[in-house]
């Protein structure tokens, strides 16, 4: 007796978003990255299409990071030069660079918006892949910094982060004026996620210029809940909810690496196995969980975890 495969039919699909711009398109990138466009639940290739591979962006900071030695050992002597760091990430296989401007933090180095814009220019000059840029997390400062960054990268179709419910207007305006895309971040709340997309869209930024960051968690810190939120967004997108149909970005590198499991030394946690391996696996497994539920862009740190994740994507995409 033959088995009949039951196929679900969906009314719509995840929107496609293009990141970066080549010289023909007003930028200087040597390639662009297209994400989204999925017309099925993740990787059910028999039901619908997954036209674009999930992309991996590797994190670069404008100042030397306070990362664990388990991470920094892979990089060598690049942390004083964001440009060199970015190049290294491209060698590791990054599809995009995720430039985090922690140096702007008023509680830290308090770098000026002009300094931040200069760092972006250096990174743009050093690599050809599209760039994601995020401020330091201080709302007032980020509004100044991101305005300068958006202007300095005009035409590059940067992915700018982050727009939040209480602070989205200046970033969305900067993106509209200088032709960029924005990350809309909400705190693990599907209703606010949808509302923020509506608010940004109402300002005049088209839906294909928004990427959703639902806020993720690392393995062991509520990743199941992340999964359920992302699943609802995906089902919404497939059910023709245009306000939830944007591709999703997941900051797994940051989340996985702030867990104690990814950091505690072998001496302090002998029962957990070798730290180097733990650090890799914590990030790789967090990434693969997000992929399973439809992440389109993964922000990552550990190059070995990146290479494992790319292998995972190869397998998921092969039909």
């Amino acid at each position, binding site marked *: 007796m033959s088995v009949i495969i039951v196929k679900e039919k969906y009314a719509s699909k995840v929107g496609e978003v293009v990141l970066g711009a080549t010289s023909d398109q007003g930028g200087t990138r040597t390639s662009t990255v297209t994400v989204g466009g999925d017309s099925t639940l993740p990787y059910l290739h028999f039901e619908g299409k997954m036209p674009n591979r999930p992309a991996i962006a590797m994190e670069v900071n404008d100042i030397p990071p306070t990362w664990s030695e388990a991470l920094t050992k892979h990089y060598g002597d690049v942390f004083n030069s964001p440009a060199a760091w970015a190049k290294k990430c491209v060698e590791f296989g990054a599809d995009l660079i995720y430039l985090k401007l922690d140096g702007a933090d008023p509680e830290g180095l308090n770098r000026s918006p002009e300094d931040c814009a200069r760092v972006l220019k250096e990174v743009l000059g050093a690599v050809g892949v599209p760039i994601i840029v995020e401020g330091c997390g201080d709302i007032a400062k980020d509004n100044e910094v991101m305005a300068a960054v958006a202007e300095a990268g005009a035409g590059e179709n940067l992915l700018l982060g982050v727009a939040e419910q209480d602070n989205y207007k200046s970033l969305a305006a900067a993106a509209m004026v200088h032709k960029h895309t924005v990350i809309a971040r909400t705190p693990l709340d*599907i*209703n*606010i996620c*949808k*509302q923020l997309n*509506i*608010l940004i869209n*109402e300002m005049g930024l088209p839906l294909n210029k928004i990427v959703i960051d639902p806020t993720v968690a690392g393995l062991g810190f509520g990743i199941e809940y992340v999964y359920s939120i992302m699943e*609802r967004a995906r089902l*919404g997108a497939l059910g023709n*909810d*245009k*306000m*939830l149909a944007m591709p999703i970005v997941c900051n797994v590198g940051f989340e996985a690496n702030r867990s104690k499991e990814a950091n505690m030394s072998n001496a302090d946690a002998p029962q957990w196995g070798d730290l180097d391996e733990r650090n890799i696996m914590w990030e790789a497994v967090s990434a693969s969980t997000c992929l399973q539920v439809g992440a389109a862009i993964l922000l990552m740190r550990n190059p070995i975890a990146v290479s494992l994740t790319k292998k995972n994507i190869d397998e998921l995409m092969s039909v």
Partner: protein
Amino acid sequence: MIIFGERINGMYTDIGDALRAKDPKPLQYWATKQEEGGAHYLDLNSGPAIPKEERAEAYEWMVKVVQEVSELPLVLDSTNYDAIEAGLKLCKRPAIINSVDAEPDKMERVFTMAMEHNAGVVGLCMNKKGIPLDHDLRVAFAMEIVATADAYGLPMEDLYIDPLILPVNVAQDHALQVLETLRLVKTLSNPAPRTVLGLTNVSQKSPANITNLLNRTFLAMAVSAGLDAAIMNANDDELVDIAASTEILLGHKIYADSYLKVFRAR
């Protein structure tokens, strides 16, 4: 919730006069206004304003002038299938034929036409003997239409079963039967067809101060029983708000504070 704007109907004086005088303005005014109100489709019905032999030409004209101002897909509402077919040929987007009952000869004509023009169909729960009171018979007619549509290959999302609501002031017993019909139509076939009502009929000839209330109340009740679409007043803002709110409360759409705006966005 899918809203068919009901206002372009020759039963209304301004539209009747416009049809006779071939004046596109009132039709175009209501096309735009209903689209702004929240309509997803525009129902076009010449009513008795135009003599039978001129109906085909009238539907061609209605389709043409409405499409000049609105991108919305159309619902061609007539018992005259020659008129509907003439209109269908000019529709830019897949239209809906409104309507057919459970009579085999009519179904043959309508479903053939629907398949040829990639159109949807409204199927009425009645036959030549009229509208039954009991939900049992209404459901039986619905299932005949569902089976026929399926035999012609019409996808169930393009079939709209209309259980037929009558005015509550003269036919109070029908509302409950309609609700029961909606429930059963949604459970008896898989995939289930869509459902639709000529909502305003429920308040026909009731005093003006309660017509909106009746329409709004019955819409909420009917959606809860399984209604997917309504031929209704797309410019009663509260009625449209209720349509949007039912989607949220039944979990068909994900809540966001601005859901009313999103519902109206095109």
